[in-house]
């Protein structure tokens, strides 16, 4: 069962039931919610620095050297991931697996023309009339 960001089962929004139990209470309860919790998601200089709005010296002075060093390492790792490219051969594999013709429309209701809509309506009315006659 999937929980949404507010920690409710999807059906609870409709039924108004109490929120369901979280899957992983210790980890997810704190991190899944959009609204700020006490002591978290406050606007800090660390976020400003990570968003490129203040320099590292200022962030280090206020937030502490250890936090800045941790995020420097995380950023270095992120930079490595940013250089990843699609492995060789994947693009060719995708091209080879494409069907012969692209889809133009897929939804059945998009394919109904006015003429076919009228024909379907007439047919349904005829069937309804026949049923009505049979039941009389």
């Amino acid at each position, binding site marked *: 069962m999937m929980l949404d960001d507010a920690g409710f089962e999807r059906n609870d929004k409709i039924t108004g039931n109490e929120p369901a139990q979280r899957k992983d209470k210790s980890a997810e309860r704190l991190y899944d919610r959009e609204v700020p919790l006490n002591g978290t998601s406050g606007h800090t200089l660390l976020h400003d620095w990570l968003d*490129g709005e203040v320099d*590292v010296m200022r962030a280090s002075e206020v937030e502490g050297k*250890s936090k800045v060093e*941790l995020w420097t390492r995380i950023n270095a790792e992120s930079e490595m991931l940013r250089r990843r490219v699609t492995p060789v051969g994947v693009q060719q*594999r995708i091209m080879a697996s494409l069907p012969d013709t692209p889809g133009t429309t897929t939804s059945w209701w998009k394919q109904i023309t006015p003429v076919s809509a009228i024909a379907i309506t007439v047919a349904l009315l005829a069937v309804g009339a026949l049923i009505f006659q049979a039941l009389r």
Partner: protein
Amino acid sequence: MTAAPLQNQGSQTLGGGSSTPDAAAPGIDADQEIIAKVLAGHKDSFGVLITRYSDPLYRHALGMTGSPDVAEDILQASFIKAYQHLGEVRGRFDAWVFRIVANSCKDWLKNIRRTHVSYDEDDQPSTYSTPEEEMDRNELRTDLQFALARLAPSLREAFVMKHVEGRSYEEMALLLETTVGALKMRVHRAREALQQLLEEKYA
């Protein structure tokens, strides 16, 4: 250390792009021309779109799933789906195909909330000078992935888009069809969660 460690790169929305959502993005008209060609029967033209967008889409899938194999599969399935529904594209192809990939990643995470992740097929050249630095890097990489796996998909998505893909909040808002404020909140929460999980060992 630079003052702005997360500056964007590239010039297009999917390439890690422009700083404003309404900025004229080069390639959009070209995308529409290519789509028209493909729909007219030139199947090979779809390869241009794959070449143009596969790298940022692959990085997103890799960041979200942590698995190169899964990322490849999601990329392939997403492009096939895009091809099958190409006639339904309204607006920007890059944003449309991004949402296909992003939804596939979140569906995968919903179905497999796994904690084991690795970039074991990392073929990137090392920038670390000593074996000790390389070991430290691998350890942090593993721990970071474990920590990311504990985040809710929406927080992980926001973190990956901001930190790994280097996107601006405006770009993210455009691609995810939400507000800059909501995304800032998600990124901040993801950072705080990761910091809480990692700082005991590293800070």
